[in-house]
């Protein structure tokens, strides 16, 4: 590798690091993304083969035609996916792109492995190990991401479990690791290709088996984890084909993704092992007990015009958005209501739970789409201390993230999860389609509190009624 190429790769690495750094602040995030993209472009233009040859100065062969066609097809798929997807379906799209990246990482490693095992250059155990790692993690990430995508699309959302599942998965993993171990030692042997294919297929299956038992509510954590997996697979590919830029980029994603996964789990107050192996929604015990306590209590419904009066004459209103708002596509109506109240001098804030919706930051993205300025969005820790001074708290399609059971009831499956303490406000209005339970599958005590009123109906329709009523009052 010439020193010019080395310098360029250092530059690319710096662009990626600065890009990720800027992505972690709202003011600079967009430029950060563009800087990372610029790094990618530089790396593409200066791409060198493992042998040190400049890729784009080789003779144009059929393979290059294939590269050009493949690139264009991928570009079209990516562009259609990125620009046609609804803002509510953003998490699925990230899962899909991640899966494709994982699949690519597995294919690259496989091709390199099979080529090297048939060639005379031989493979060191280290290189064989990194190719096997990339294949295993990449294909697992591919199939796992597709299941995560389908779950977020509402297909088999419920966790799928059967007795002994964790043991079976453990056995499959052991077989995979055994095959990998054997292949590391016998990479050039006659049976290597066959064993490799078996390993590949088992890894694909393992990705499915790993994600199937996890409930739809935990998909964000799963996607974040699979994202960091793909990063590591890419880094391992970088080792295998001797491409430093891939090692750096993949590792950065792997480690920052791991940290992000842990941050998300921390926001839900659950250890990551519980998310992956706990089969959250299937434990009905806490829910049943909760329902028993509430047997004698009833909820108190309210009409839109009455809510409008409460809102219009309040000093301070806090809106707690949840997935229900996303489903009803109600973010624009929410903005309208907040503007209308703002004009009347009401202080309106949005309380954002870190895991509201289907992905951390999901609500922020949706509200930003509706032009709600981000300084009006307050994070849970920042708003909780002042909840006592809030006149009206409007809960729009959020459920588990405002459930006081997380604070009060030790038997509840969500006990210990930090919540937005909506129940401490003077009046709580819960907008909801029905009394159905939230993602965690448990009753919400908030709905039965004395200061809570239920406004039933589709969130968007209710909000439009509220806007009209506030204008009239």
């Amino acid at each position: 590798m010439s020193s010019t190429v080395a310098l360029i790769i250092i530059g690319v690495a710096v662009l990626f690091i600065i890009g990720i750094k800027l992505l972690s602040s709202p003011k600079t995030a967009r430029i950060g993304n563009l800087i990372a993209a610029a790094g990618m472009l530089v790396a593409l233009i200066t791409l060198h083969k493992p042998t040190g040859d400049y890729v784009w100065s080789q003779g144009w062969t059929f393979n290059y035609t294939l590269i050009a066609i493949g690139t264009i097809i991928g570009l079209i798929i990516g562009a259609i996916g990125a620009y046609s997807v609804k803002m509510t379906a953003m998490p699925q799209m990230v899962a899909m792109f991640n899966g494709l990246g994982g699949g690519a990482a597995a294919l690259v490693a496989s091709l390199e492995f099979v080529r090297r095992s048939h060639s005379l250059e031989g493979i060191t155990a280290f290189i064989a190990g990194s190719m096997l790692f990339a294949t295993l993690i990449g294909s697992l990430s591919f199939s796992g991401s597709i299941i995560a995508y389908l779950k977020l699309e509402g297909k088999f959302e419920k966790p799928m479990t059967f007795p002994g599942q964790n043991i079976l998965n453990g056995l499959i993993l052991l077989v995979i690791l055994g095959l990998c171990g054997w292949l590391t030692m016998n990479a050039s042997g006659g049976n290597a290709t066959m064993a490799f294919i078996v390993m590949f297929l088992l890894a694909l299956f393992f990705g499915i088996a790993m994600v199937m038992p996890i409930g739809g509510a935990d998909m964000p954590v799963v996607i974040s984890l699979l994202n960091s997996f793909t990063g590591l697979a890419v880094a391992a590919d970088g080792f295998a084909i001797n491409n430093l830029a891939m090692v750096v980029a993949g590792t950065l994603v792997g480690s920052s993704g791991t940290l992000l996964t842990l941050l998300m789990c921390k926001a839900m107050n659950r250890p990551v092992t519980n998310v992956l192996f706990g089969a959250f929604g299937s434990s009905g015990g806490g829910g049943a007990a909760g329902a028993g306590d509430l047997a004698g209590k009833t909820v108190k419904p309210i009409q839109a015009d009455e809510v409008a009066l409460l809102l219009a004459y309040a000093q301070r209103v806090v809106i707690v958005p949840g997935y229900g708002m996303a489903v009803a596509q109600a973010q624009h109506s929410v903005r309208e209501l907040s503007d209308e109240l703002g004009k009347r001098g009401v202080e309106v804030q949005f309380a954002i739970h870190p895991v509201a919706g289907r992905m951390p930051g999901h609500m922020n993205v949706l509200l930003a789409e509706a032009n709600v300025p981000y300084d009006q969005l307050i994070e849970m820790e920042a708003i909780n201390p002042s909840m006592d001074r809030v006149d009206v708290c409007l809960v729009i399609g959020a459920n588990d993230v405002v459930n006081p059971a997380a604070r009060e009831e030790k038997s509840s499956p969500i006990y210990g999860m930090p919540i937005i303490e909506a129940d401490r406000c003077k009046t709580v209005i819960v907008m909801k389609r029905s009394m159905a339970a939230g993602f965690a599958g448990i009753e919400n005590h908030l709905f039965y509190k004395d200061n809570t009123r239920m406004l039933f109906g589709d969130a968007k329709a209710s909000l439009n009624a509220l806007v009209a009523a506030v204008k009239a009052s």
Partner: protein
Amino acid sequence: MDTNVLFIFILAIFVGFEVISKVPSMLHTPLMSGTNAIHGIIFFGGILVLADAATPLAQALGFIAVIFGSANVFGGFMVTDRMLKMFRKKKQP
């Protein structure tokens, strides 16, 4: 060579941890999406293997790898940009 790469690998782990240690949860999704685009660098891995593919099977699989990688990198950056485009401080009139 191997030890040099390992050295870089270890340093990159720490940089990755350090660089996002203080990120507000509102940016978790865009950040995940942005890092998702960065691992799209596997696209180049696809190009490199396909450029040297010698058998029809290798060409076919390399071709798929290029499509997947290309969709990952282009789609990843575009979807992230689309998310972030919407973050703005002042209300539009």
